[in-house]
């Protein structure tokens, strides 16, 4: 049986590990290399690393840091943030990263997904899609860290990304990011029903049962968690942690 994946999603900003709330208020939560080592010891299924400053800032992609993290990763690693060309994707993959996540650059030109997939295979391309609820119902897709709206509907957009060659879709509910009040299961269901490729759900995990729900009811192949992996307890003390395999087994379908 294929096990649904449970994935810590780590955010980088200026080389530091941070955690956001609704894509804002980035709070420093530790050293990225140390975090990767801990998650490696915990034998987590996979790691997603997103540099939230790489697209807007001039610093660009932190290649050295990615390489250091990858060499500590004995599980698959996804890197996203600031990737605009096949050459950049190649450099990242050569560092020992399995998959690159593409978001803003795909919004500008969806053919980047195709070109990266042609060069490294569809399994190496994760199309990252950030979604916010509209005030009067429905959803809207955003690029550039939630700052730039797209005119395409969620279903249309993920379908187009799949057609373009994405091997996986990472869907993040912006409104749920850092809230720890549960995933947007309806959104995940919408996406997982629209595509045949695996879907990673992100945004909102507060408990291990949320993770089970987004897989069971949302149809996600993987549950990504942010706050849950870096905070502990009601006061959100910073502590790298992760549900145990037994805890996950109890909630996953």
């Amino acid at each position, binding site marked *: 049986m*294929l*096990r649904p994946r449970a994935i810590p999603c780590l955010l980088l900003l200026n080389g530091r590990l941070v955690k956001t709330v609704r894509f804002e208020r980035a709070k420093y939560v530790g050293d990225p290399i140390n975090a990767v080592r801990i998650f490696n010891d915990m*034998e987590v299924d996979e790691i997603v690393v997103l540099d939230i400053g790489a697209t807007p800032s001039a610093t660009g992609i932190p290649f050295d840091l990615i390489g250091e993290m990858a060499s500590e990763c*004995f599980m*698959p690693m996804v890197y996203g943030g600031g990737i605009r060309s096949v050459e950049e994707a190649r450099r990242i993959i*050569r*560092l020992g990263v399995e998959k690159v996540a593409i978001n803003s650059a795909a919004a500008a030109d969806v053919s980047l997904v195709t070109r990266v997939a042609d060069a490294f*295979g569809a399994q190496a391309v994760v199309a990252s899609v950030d979604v916010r609820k509209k005030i009067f119902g429905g959803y809207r897709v955003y690029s550039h860290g939630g700052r730039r709206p797209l005119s395409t509907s969620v279903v249309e957009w993920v379908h187009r990304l799949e057609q373009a060659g994405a091997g996986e879709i990472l869907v993040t509910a912006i409104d749920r990011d850092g809230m720890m009040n549960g995933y947007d299961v309806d959104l995940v269901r919408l996406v997982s029903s629209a595509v045949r490729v695996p879907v990673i759900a992100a945004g909102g995990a507060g408990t291990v049962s949320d993770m089970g729900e987004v897989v069971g009811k949302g149809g996600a*192949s*993987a549950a990504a968690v942010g706050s849950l992996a870096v905070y502990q307890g009601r006061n959100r003390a910073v502590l790298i942690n992760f549900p145990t395999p037994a805890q996950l087994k109890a909630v996953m379908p």
Partner: protein
Amino acid sequence: MSNSKVVVVNYGLGNPSSVRNMLRKAGCESEVTSEPAAILAASRLLLPGVGAFDHGMQNLADLGLIDVLNEAVLVRKTPILGICLGLQLMSRRSEEGVAPGLGWLGADTVRFRFTQAADGFRVPHMGWNTVVATRQTFLRPPEADARFYFVHSYHLRFDDPGDVALMADYGGPVVAAAVRDNIAGTQFHPEKSHRFGLTLLRSFADWFPSGA
């Protein structure tokens, strides 16, 4: 401790650095190369790979490595482990492309096809899966809770099921690993499968196929 160096064939596809990292962690000496002389002299070879079948065969041809690998594996009987695409390239052909494979294994590589009942299984088969050993080989995991990371859209179908070593289940039986003579391969990625993959690579470094 393993004393025989693993020579990792670099043909521009896949991630030799990940394989090398895991071999280092496993305490195995390794070298990443596309030099024919180094491949012919190797006491142990590893053919990694992620990507498209035809692209893989084309790269091997461009590097002049097809004859070299045939000599090393079929004539010198050097033990070799293929990983993912590396295993698929050892088959005769793949539905993914038109190029002939290395043809070392009596197998063809086919795309996932699901019966109606198993409809809803997504392709690629991506994630952690358990395996069942169909016979005793060095690939058999000693851990009861062993699991491995898979990511593939094609899989091998063997003429002789006796060549299969490990099976997985994804909408039906899927070959997870095979061994015949000095030729072995895994469909999953031991280099990304935590301690389970580490154990497997260590076992490969200690593997002396009979007759090789």
